[in-house]
Structure formats: structure tokens, C-alpha cells
């Protein structure tokens, strides 16, 4: 039996005005376990707290009930008080007789009556309280960043800068991501490569950072501070540590007509290739679907020309297992497929392109060496039509488009239009828009400059149909402000395709037990207050995997995610919330119901040998809760038919005791 002390607070007149605090203290004296009961004007004051401490010593209290304001207000205060008095802080229960009693009831009689009942419930509960100690777990001081685009790069650099080792896993042969494909960046128009490639070099040279390129994560086990991750390094048939990136093999390879992914298929690359000049790591990769040697054992030219001897046709996929304390998801985005939007004739004409293709077309390292030429005939286009929101804000077309706004298109389209007019003043540039959305520092100014200084023709309306005819693209569109239907003979049409999360994100989310929204964007632990954390502890979000965002936003989120990771890795031990679930193995059925409802993947199963009363042994499957992962929601406790699963601090018996006390 506990020795319970009851402390009824007046809160000045806040409580005492409607509740007869003396009567409450008096009534609770006769409750089971109560050995001391008193009242005081301000229990949270230093004097009030001292009163509690003294009472603990004087009356040898093992449990404390404070009848006062909401536990959301002062539970922490009184727990500290209890700890200072040498009690376990979780031996404190609060009866909320202010917010949920004196403040909402006017009648002294019923207010006092209710306060007594709430006090009784708290006494009943504290009688069943047990000292709780938060669990501790060690932290592996290494971080994993999944995705090597600007988000992953920035996160890795920031983590490494704080002194922690970090690994980047990138599925492409090089890091750099989408930003490496861009030409200029808005709103400053500095060249993407000029600001990105130095960061890529920093990554390569940082001895705290390891890059696993051409690799993917295939398995994640464990929990915050202690993840066990399997990384599959795909065979690139080139020894990474030997290859110098000289490119001799690339020049000699006879299989030259493979669509070049980096230029979105607008030109070709050989079977052995380095994606672009500033690739990191700058090593060659053999495309096994294109290489003659790998397909039918004929050729071997690259091995012959490689003076370093880096080519290895026998290389196999390699699996690496590594421990991490934190994982950052930075899997990024892709433009959606334009296949189902053929009213814009993307499949019918080479001169209808996406904005990302336009980036490559204007990039000095792109297929046309930076000259804006029509893909169909290499001629200079004189009339260019940009179509915004292709597949974005598309509610009715769930099969092909996205309901959300892709956020970045307004700005990059303004950039494309402006740059075109700047470089080729003889070109007519139309931008069809539904709304121009340019919130952001210097963003609206940028868009207005495109209109006012560069003469880009912005038309409020949408393109309805594009008809390739002869060399022209007949664009039929509406100009809503002029209330006209426009017919424009264009030479080039650029579609601002909606963006979507990378396809690798969904299986990764399953591995990480991280939640996603219906669009496959990762969800945040809190949309406003914890925007870079996943609800799964130890998993953080960086960049467009969480939602569409531009480079400045991505970089700031990358930094934020890094600081969260650093905060985690800086700890030697993690202290958990002690109010976690626990399973009574003696009556656990091992039925898996609890694991089904656990949002955190905190429950696993093991076979355990039990000694039976008749001295035989029996092996049974039982649930085991990882207290470091459990967040204490209690979903599992209700789904457990035998009641084996219970929640510390909110145990079945405790809640039922409260129910009984209230219903008595």
C-alpha cells in the first residue's frame, strides 16, 4: 500500500473561488492510502513545493496527489519536486481541479463535489503507480543520408562539419541529383554547376564522408540511435578505387548509341560512361544492358585501353552492412510522365519538351552545347510557348496528374522565359498560366522583370490543344483576360511538368516504417513544429522527398535536418519516455495483433523457452517492445485480447481504478 500525500492548491481564488479546498483536503483524507492531506494558496510556489518536500520526509510518503491546475501546466514542476524529495518523479498524479473544474463550473457545491471525485480518481491511480525509469540506449555516432542530390549533399556536409562520420547512398553513378542537370538558378541566375560542383568536390574530399554511388538501401532494422542498414552496391564493372576517370574507355567504346539519361535521352552516350564532366566519384560505369562484353562476351575494348586496369567484367553486386544512429531521407523528385497529356502532343513531336529537357537544351554542357535549337531539326525557334501547371493542381486526373501545386514551376518558367528573351531577343515567348505563384525573397520581382524588362508575354489561361503540323506546333489556348481563344504557331513548346517523389521513396518508407501521404511524400512529425523529422524517431527528412521545394528551401531544410541529426548524435545515450508499452510474456499469445497497430514498428517477436509447472519446457512466440522506439500511444494495449500488453503510467488497472473512483 502506498503512503499518499494530498496537496490541494487554492491557486489564489482561481480554484478556491469555486471549490471549497478545505473540504476537498478533508474528504480525501479518508481515501485508501492517504496519510496526509492539506491545502495551500499556491502549491507551485517555492513555499508550496517546500511544503510537499517536507511532507514527504515527515510522513514517509510514497505517492503524491496534487489537486491543482492542469498537468499540462505543472506536472513537470511537481515531478521535479518529488525527485528533489527523493521520490520517483512518476509517483505524482495531478487532479485537474482548475481548468476542468473551478473554471468551468460556477456552483461551489457541485464544483467541490467534482473536485473531490477528481481527487479520489487521482488517489486511486497513484495507489497503483510504480516508479518508472526512462530507458536508455546507446547512440551509434554515424549518420546515413539516402540520396545524393543537393539536399543529401548539404545535409552530409553539415553533419560532417560537426565532426560526425556520414555516408551518402546514391543510386545513380554520381552524386549531384537534379541540380546538376540545371542550367541557371533563380532568382539570381548564377549557374547551377558553379555553385553545386564545389560542394560535390567538398563531399568527395571530406574524410568524414563516404559516398556509396550506384548503390541503394535494401534493408533497415533497428531503431533510433541503432539502425542496422544493408546497402547494395551495384556492380559497375569498374574498380572505383583504381579508375582515374580519364575517359579513354568512354571514347573507345563502340556501343555509342545508348540514350543519355543525363540529357534526358536528347543525345547518346556509350555503354561505358561517366554521366558528366564533374561527376563525383569521377569513375566510369558500364551499363550492363548495353555492353556487348557483358551481354555476349564479345568486345573487351575498354579493358584494353584502360591503362590503370580498372575494368572488371566479373564484378558482382556487393552488400555492405553498417550501423547508423540517424537516417536522413533525401530521395528527391522527378517530373511526372507526360504520356497521358497528349493534348499537348508530347509524344507526337520532338519539339514539345519538358522544362527539365529545356534546362539541358540551354545548358552549355547539354546536347546542343547551350544553343537553343529545336530538337527536331536543329533550327532556331522563333516562337516559344511555355505551358504551366501540366499535371499540377489536377484533381480530376488522379491517374495521370497530381492534385497539389508543384511550387517550383512558376519560378523556373519565368527564368526560362527571361533567359530566352535575353539571349535571343528575336524570339517571341508566351507563358500560359493559371496563377503565377511567386512568394519568396526576390521572387515576384524576378517574375515581373521577365514581363517588364524582357517582354515575356504572360497570358492568363491554359493551352487546350497542340497540333503539330508540318514544322509548326499549332497552339490553341485561351486568354481569359481578353476573353479570346488564341491560335499561335509555335516552334517550340515547353511543358512545366508536375513533380512527384522519386519512385524509390515508397519501398524505402516501408523499410523505415516512416509514414507517407497519399502522394508518396514523406510526412513530418509535425507539419509546423517538426518539419524535418519523420514521426519515426531517428529518421529525418531533407529536400523534395517531403514536398515540392526549390533549391534555397531544400538547402535550408537540409541544414535543419543536419542540425537535428547532430543533436541526436551528440548524445551518448538516449533517454526515452518511460510511459511505454510492455508485454507480459507469461500471458502473451504472440498473435501479432499489437505489431499490426504499432505506428512505430516498436514491437518484434521472439521465441522464448518457458519452464512449465511440470518441469518440461515449452517454446512460445512472444512480443517484445523496444522501449527506445515506443512512443506510448497504447494502441497495442487495446488490441491485445489477453491483456498481456499494458502501458506504463496508463496501465489497465490504473485507468480502471480511475473509472471506479469516478463511478463510485
Amino acid at each position: 500500500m502506498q503512503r499518499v500525500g494530498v496537496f490541494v492548491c487554492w491557486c489564489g481564488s482561481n480554484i478556491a473561488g469555486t471549490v471549497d479546498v478545505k473540504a476537498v483536503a478533508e474528504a480525501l483524507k479518508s481515501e485508501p492510502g492517504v496519510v496526509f492531506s492539506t491545502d495551500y494558496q499556491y502549491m507551485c510556489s517555492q513555499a508550496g513545493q517546500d511544503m510537499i518536500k517536507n511532507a514527504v520526509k515527515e510522513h514517509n510518503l510514497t505517492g503524491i496527489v496534487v489537486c491543482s491546475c492542469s498537468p499540462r501546466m505543472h506536472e513537470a514542476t511537481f515531478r521535479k519536486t518529488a525527485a528533489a524529495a527523493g521520490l520517483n518523479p512518476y509517483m505524482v498524479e495531478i487532479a485537474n481541479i482548475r481548468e476542468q473544474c473551478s473554471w468551468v463550473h460556477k456552483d461551489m457545491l457541485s464544483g467541490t463535489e467534482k473536485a473531490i471525485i477528481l481527487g479520489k480518481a487521482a488517489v486511486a491511480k497513484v495507489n497503483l503507480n510504480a516508479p518508472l525509469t526512462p530507458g536508455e540506449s546507446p547512440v551509434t555516432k554515424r549518420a546515413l543520408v539516402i540520396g545524393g542530390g543537393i539536399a543529401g549533399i548539404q545535409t552530409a556536409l553539415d553533419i560532417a562539419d560537426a565532426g560526425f562520420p556520414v555516408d551518402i547512398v546514391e543510386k545513380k553513378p554520381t552524386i549531384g541529383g537534379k541540380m546538376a542537370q540545371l542550367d541557371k538558378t533563380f532568382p539570381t541566375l548564377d549557374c547551377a554547376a558553379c555553385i553545386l560542383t564545389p560542394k560535390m568536390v567538398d563531399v568527395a574530399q571530406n574524410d568524414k564522408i563516404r559516398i556509396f554511388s550506384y548503390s541503394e538501401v535494401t534493408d533497415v532494422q533497428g531503431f533510433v540511435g541503432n539502425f542496422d542498414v544493408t546497402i547494395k552496391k551495384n556492380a559497375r564493372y569498374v574498380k572505383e578505387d583504381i579508375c582515374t576517370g580519364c575517359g579513354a574507355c568512354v571514347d573507345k567504346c563502340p556501343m555509342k548509341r545508348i540514350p543519355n539519361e543525363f540529357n534526358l535521352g536528347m543525345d547518346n552516350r556509350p555503354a561505358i560512361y561517366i554521366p558528366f564532366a564533374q561527376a563525383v566519384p569521377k569513375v566510369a560505369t558500364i551499363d550492363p544492358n548495353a555492353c556487348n562484353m557483358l551481354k555476349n562476351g564479345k568486345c573487351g575494348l575498354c579493358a584494353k585501353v584502360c591503362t590503370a586496369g580498372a575494368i572488371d567484367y566479373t564484378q558482382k553486386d556487393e552488400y555492405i552492412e553498417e550501423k547508423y544512429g540517424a537516417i536522413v531521407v533525401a530521395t528527391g523528385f522527378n517530373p511526372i510522365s507526360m504520356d497521358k497529356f497528349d493534348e499537348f502532343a508530347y509524344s507526337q513531336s520532338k519539339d514539345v519538351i519538358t522544362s527539365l529537357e529545356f534546362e539541358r537544351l540551354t545548358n552549355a554542357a547539354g546536347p546542343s552545347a547551350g544553343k537553343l535549337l529545336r530538337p527536331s531539326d536543329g533550327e532556331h525557334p522563333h516562337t516559344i510557348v511555355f505551358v504551366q501547371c501540366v499535371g499540377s493542381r489536377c484533381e480530376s486526373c488522379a491517374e495521370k496528374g497530381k492534385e497539389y501545386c508543384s511550387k517550383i514551376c512558376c519560378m523556373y518558367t519565368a527564368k526560362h522565359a527571361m533567359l530566352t528573351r535575353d539571349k535571343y531577343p528575336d524570339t517571341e515567348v508566351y507563358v500560359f498560366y493559371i496563377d503565377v505563384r511567386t512568394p519568396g525573397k526576390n521572387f515576384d520581382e524576378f517574375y515581373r522583370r521577365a514581363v517588364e524588362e524582357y517582354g515575356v508575354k504572360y497570358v492568363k489561361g491554359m493551352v487546350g490543344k497542340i497540333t503539330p503540323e508540318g514544322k509548326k506546333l499549332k497552339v490553341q489556348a485561351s486568354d481569359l483576360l481578353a476573353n479570346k481563344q488564341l491560335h499561335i504557331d509555335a516552334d517550340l513548346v515547353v511543358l512545366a511538368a508536375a513533380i512527384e517523389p522519386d519512385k524509390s521513396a515508397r519501398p524505402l518508407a516501408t523499410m523505415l516504417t516512416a509514414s507517407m501521404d497519399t502522394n508518396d511524400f514523406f510526412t513530418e512529425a509535425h507539419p509546423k513544429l517538426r518539419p524535418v523529422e519523420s514521426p519515426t524517431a531517428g529518421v529525418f527528412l531533407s529536400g523534395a522527398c517531403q514536398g515540392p521545394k526549390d533549391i534555397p528551401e531544400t538547402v535550408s531544410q537540409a541544414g535543419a535536418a543536419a542540425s537535428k541529426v547532430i543533436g541526436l548524435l551528440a548524445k551518448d545515450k538516449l533517454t526515452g519516455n518511460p510511459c511505454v508499452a510492455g508485454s507480459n510474456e507469461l500471458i502473451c499469445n504472440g498473435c501479432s495483433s499489437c505489431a499490426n497497430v504499432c505506428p512505430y514498428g516498436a514491437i518484434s517477436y521472439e521465441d522464448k523457452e518457458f519452464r512449465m509447472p511440470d518441469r518440461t519446457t515449452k517454446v512460445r512466440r512472444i512480443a517484445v517492445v523496444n522501449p527506445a522506439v515506443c512512443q506510448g500511444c497504447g494502441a497495442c494495449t487495446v488490441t491485445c485480447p489477453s491483456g498481456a500488453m499494458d502501458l506504463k503510467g496508463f496501465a489497465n488497472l490504473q485507468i480502471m481504478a480511475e473509472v471506479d473512483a469516478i463511478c463510485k
Partner: protein
Amino acid sequence: MQKITREQLIEKASALLSNSTVSCVLGWGMGEFDYDVTPTTFNSVEELEKGFVFSDFCGANFSKYLVKKAAACEGKILVFLKPCDTYSFNQLLTEHRFDREKVYVVGIPCEGMADINKVKAICGEGILSIGSKGDKMTVTTLYDDEPVSIDAKEVLAERCLNCKSKKHVAFDELLGDEGDVIESNRFDEVARLEAMTPDERFAFWQNELSRCIRCNACRDACPACTCEKCVFDNPNSGVENKSPANSFEEKLFHIIRAYHVAGRCTDCGECSRVCPQNIPLHLLNRKFIKDINEFYGEYQAGAEEGQRAPLVDYTTEDLEPGEVFDRRDSDA
């Protein structure tokens, strides 16, 4: 009535014992009366020939027995499962309640089992023996000189009249013909109750449940109730079993019993079969099944191994608890 015979079953079991596929057999043994058949473990061909029975009273669902018996048997255990039993079998596998490798399942066809109470209603008490010939049943009693011949169809158990499936959803081999899932009218009685006024429903259940003697047979027979320790037996659960003080307490027990198996109950009907007070307990289970089907889409527990039960699942578009009634009211 049954198309499969005792001899066929013994032959199959003997063969499997002889070639060491299994080391014991879970089958039906003779009880005190012909209709009082008891699940029994047989370890040899001799034991089988001596004590194995098979008749229209072999309704017991053996799936549940595997939780204890499969582990206890040295090698594999042979179990004969009727189609409805296989659903429970899968459900228990889903819940990892026994090792599939330890069990050899022979699926047997079922023509529906008899309800002894229906027999007694026709022939009276004092039954000495019951024989079966084709569609007829021959009953001799203490009080009749001549055996009474009754139509086996007339004494079919309620659950067999509303049989949901003649298809085995789990087996290692099948004896006899395989059947199909059946469109049954098993929810009609639930619907009839739903159509009553709340007062009528209350009266109905008060009448039914007040007969409960808390013998726990329903729970003990239920293949979904396999907890290592039932909350009603656990002194630490706070709801430990007490003898009933009045007609109200049964509700708590019966609601929780049905709730604990909701989404997991395969509707095998064992609860009602074993109830000595003939309380239609299966209606509580069927109510949950019917609701789940209506709220969250058709779901048959045990249809496949590894299914996720509806109450440990959700969609973001689920209906609100308050809408449960709006729906029904608008349908009415």
C-alpha cells in the same frame, strides 16, 4: 448423412501413421452416448480401430486443439478438418498459434452436422443409440420400443443450415469432393434483430443472456479464444470472473467475448453449439462480422493465411462511429 465414412478416415489415418508421415492423429472418440463425441488423440492403428468414431455428431472444430496438441505431439499430428474448420485453422496460423510444419491436414467433406437438441425435440429424452443410413437417422430411446427414423436434414445444426463454405481453405490433402464458398443467409437473423426497436432488442437479449450460467463453454470451445490466459481468468486483469450476481453481468462478459474475437471470428458456430443453455451466442459474433462487412468491405476471417484483421487496420476515409447509426437509419 456424411458421405465420407469412418472406414475411409481410419484407412487414411492408418496409412499416414504407418508411413511415418504423422505420429499421432487428432480424431473423434466415443463418448458416453452416440451423440456425445469427444476429441481424442490416437497414437496407433490399434487405438484408431478401437476408438475412432465418425458420425453426424462430429461437429467439434479441431483447429483450436492444435494450439496445445501440435506442440505436444512428438512428430507431426494428423488432423481431419471440415471446410469450416479450415478457416479457423488459417486464422490461428495467422496469429502464429501453432507451427504449420507440425500439422498434417486432411480436408474432409461435410454434409452438415446434426444438432442433438433437435433430435431430442423429436424423439424425446433417453436416447440409447443413434444410427445413420443415407438421409435417415435411426434413434432408439428408453421409452420407445421401435427405433424412430428421422430425416437427417430436419436435425441439421443452425450453423450448418447457414453453411458459408464447403471449400477447404487450407489442407495438405483432400478426401472426397471439394466444394465451393456458398451464398448463405446467415445474416438474416441479425438483420431481423436490427429491425426491432431497441426495447425489443433489449428484451430479447435480456431473456437470452439471463440464462447464462457462466460455465465458459463458449469461450473454451471458441477457436479464436486461445489466449494463454483469458482476462476473465486473470486475477490481475481487474475483470476476473465472478459467479453471476444478477442477470446484467453477463452482458459485460458476452460483449467483451465477442469483441475480443471481432475481426478474427470465422463464424464457425462452436460457441452456440456448446452452450448448454442454448443461447444464440453466434448472433453476437455475426453482428460484428456483418458490421465489419458493411463498414469496411467484405472480410472473411481465415479465408487466407496472413490476412490483416479489420480492427487492426484502418483507412483515412472510414466512417465515424456516429455515422453507424445514420447509415442504418437512412436505410430503414
